C-alpha cells in the first residue's frame, strides 16, 4: 500500500534529503549477547524496517568492549580476550553503523587504554558515558575528568547520558545536564553531547544553554510537544543532534520530534544529520 508522504511520515524523497545520521542507536544497549554481538545484530534486524522507512544513512551505537560495563563477568572476560567480537556489528553493517565505546570511569586505567585501542587506532568515533549499570559515574567525578582529557586529545565525540528525574536520580552514577555543564566548562574546546536533553527537557535545555560546547540529543523520552521548538529557540539549531533510540523507542516517537516540529526545513536538516556529521569531522 503506497502511503508515501502520508499519515505523519515525510515522503521518502524528503527523508532522503534530510540525510539522517542517527547519533543514538541502541541495539541491545545493555548487553550485546553472550557471544559479544548476537543480541546487537538481532536488534539491528528488529530496527531494520524503521531504519529503512526513515532512510537513515548512518546510525551510531555504543559498544561494550570488555571494560566492565555489564554485570556479566564471563562476557567481559570474553570481550577482553577476543576483541574481534566487538567489531562484528561494524563488519556486518559497514555502510550503516558507526560506533562509540562505552567507558567505565570506575576503571580509569582500562578505560584510558580502551580509548587508545578503539578510538585513537579506530574504528570507533567516540565514547559514551553511561547513566546506569556498573560503569555509571557522575560526570563531575575526577575519574571522568581524567578520561575527558584523553578523549579531547584523541578528538573523540563524547556522548553523556543525562536525566533529570522527578524524585531524584535513577542511581548515584547518573549525570544531570547541570553536572555536564560543570564538566564542559573545564574543556571549552571539546564538544559534549547531552543525551536525552536531560529527559525533563525544559530544565535540561536551560541547564546547558550558556555552555556553547554542549549539544543536546533528542531521544529517550516521550514525543512531548514543544521540545524541539524550545531547543531551537534557546540553543539554536546548530546545537541539537538527532537520536533514534531504536529499537526500544520508535521511529514515530523520535523522528516526529524533529520532522513535525514548527522549525524550518533547514533547521531540521541540520538537526537530523548535518550537525552530527560536523561533530565527526565529516
Amino acid at each position: 500500500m503506497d502511503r508515501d508522504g502520508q499519515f505523519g511520515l515525510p515522503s521518502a524523497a524528503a527523508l532522503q534529503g534530510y540525510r539522517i545520521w542517527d547519533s543514538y542507536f541502541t541495539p541491545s544497549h545493555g548487553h550485546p549477547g553472550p557471544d559479544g554481538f548476537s543480541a546487537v545484530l538481532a536488534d539491528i534486524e528488529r530496527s531494520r524496517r524503521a531504519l529503512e522507512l526513515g532512510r537513515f544513512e548512518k546510525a551510531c551505537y555504543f559498544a561494550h568492549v570488555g571494560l566492565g560495563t555489564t554485570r556479566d563477568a564471563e562476557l567481559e572476560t570474553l570481550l577482553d580476550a577476543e576483541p574481534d567480537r566487538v567489531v562484528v556489528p561494524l563488519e556486518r553493517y559497514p555502510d550503516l553503523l558507526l560506533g562509540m565505546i562505552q567507558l567505565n570511569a570506575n576503571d580509569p586505567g582500562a578505560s584510558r587504554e580502551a580509548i587508545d585501542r578503539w578510538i585513537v587506532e579506530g574504528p570507533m568515533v567516540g565514547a559514551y558515558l553511561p547513566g546506569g549499570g556498573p560503569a555509571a559515574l557522575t560526570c563531575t567525578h575526577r575519574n571522568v575528568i581524567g578520561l575527558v582529557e584523553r578523549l579531547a586529545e584523541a578528538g573523540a565525540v563524547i556522548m553523556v547520558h543525562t536525566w533529570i528525574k522527578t524524585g531524584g536520580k535513577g542511581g548515584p552514577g547518573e549525570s544531570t545536564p547541570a553536572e555536564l555543564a560543570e564538566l564542559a566548562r573545564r574543556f571549552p574546546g571539546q564538544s559534549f553531547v547531552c543525551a536525552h536533553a536531560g529527559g525533563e527537557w525544559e530544565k535540561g535545555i536551560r541547564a546547558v544553554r550558556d555552555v556553547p560546547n554542549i549539544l543536546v540529543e533528542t531521544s529517550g523520552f516521550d514525543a512531548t510537544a514543544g521540545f524541539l521548538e524550545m531547543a531551537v529557540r534557546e540553543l539554536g539549531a546548530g546545537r541539537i543532534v538527532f537520536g533514534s533510540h531504536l529499537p526500544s523507542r520508535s521511529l514515530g516517537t523520535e523522528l516526529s520530534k524533529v520532522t513535525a516540529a514548527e522549525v524550518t526545513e533547514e533547521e531540521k536538516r541540520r538537526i537530523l544529520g548535518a550537525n552530527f556529521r560536523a561533530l565527526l569531522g565529516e
Partner: protein
Amino acid sequence: MKRRALLESSLSVAAAGIVSTSSLSKSENRTQDGGGVLSVFDTNVSLFRWPFRRLPLDETEALVRRLRELGVARALAGSFEGVLHRDCGAVNRRLAEECARFSELLPVGTIDPGRPGWESDLEECAGELGMRAIRLFPNYHGYALGDRRFHALLERAATAGLLVQVAVALEDTRTQHRLVAVPDVDLGPLPEAVGRVPGVLVQVLNDRPRGAYPEALLDESRISFDVARVDGTDGVARLRDMVGWERVLFGSHAPFLIPEAALIRTVHESGLAEHELRCIVGGNAERLLFDKA
C-alpha cells in the same frame, strides 16, 4: 450556546456516526486503495490548556487543522481542564460547546466519582450533552480501580451506554512537576471490576506496557487499549500480539504528545496486516462507539 443547540449539534455528528463531507474533503492523507479510504479515528485527544506548559497545538483550531492534515476524520476529545478543575459539570459543558464547532470532534466528559454529584455529571454527559464516552483520571482524582466508587461508576456508565476511558497516565512519572507527582494507575483490579458489570466497555489510555500484561487483563475482552505511549519500534505489533487486534485502538494523546508519533508508529512502522491496520486506526473505535447491540 444553549444546551439544546449543543445537544443537537453533538448528536448530529455522534449519533449519525458519519463525518461530514466537508471535513473529509479537508483531509490530505486519505489513501484510496482496494479497501477504500484509510480513515483515522483518534480516540485520545484533549482540548484546552495543559496545566504545566503551553503546547504548539493547544488551540482547538490548530489541533483540528493538524488532525485533518494527518487524515484523522474523527477524534474523541477530552478536556485537560478535567484533570484539576473540581466542577466537572462546567468542564464538560465547555468541552461540548467547543467540540460542536468542529465536525471531527466528539466530546468526552470527565467524571470524578470522588466528587459530590458525579452521578448527575454522568447523566448530563449521556443525556443533554450527547456524549458517547467519558474519561477518568483515577491517579489525579485520588482513587484506585478497586474502589467501590469506580464500580458504581462502571454500572452507571453501562446503563447509559457510555464507553469508559481510563487514563493510566498523562505524563511520564520521571518528568512530572515535583509538586504534582502522580504514579501510573494500577490496572490490577480492572479486570475484576469490569467482569462484575455486564455490558460495560473500558478503554485504557496512555499505558506503556512493560512486558506481558497479567492473564486476567488479557482475558477480559471488554477492555481495550490505545497506542499513544506504546513505544518501541514493534510496540504496537507486540500489543496486538498480546491482546488481539480487535482490542487495540489508535490514540495519540495530542496535543500533549506529537500526533505524528503514534500515527507513524501504527500506520508505517508496525508492519500490521491491512485489515488489522484498518481496524486499529478506525474500525475498532467505530464498533465500540456506534455498533453497540
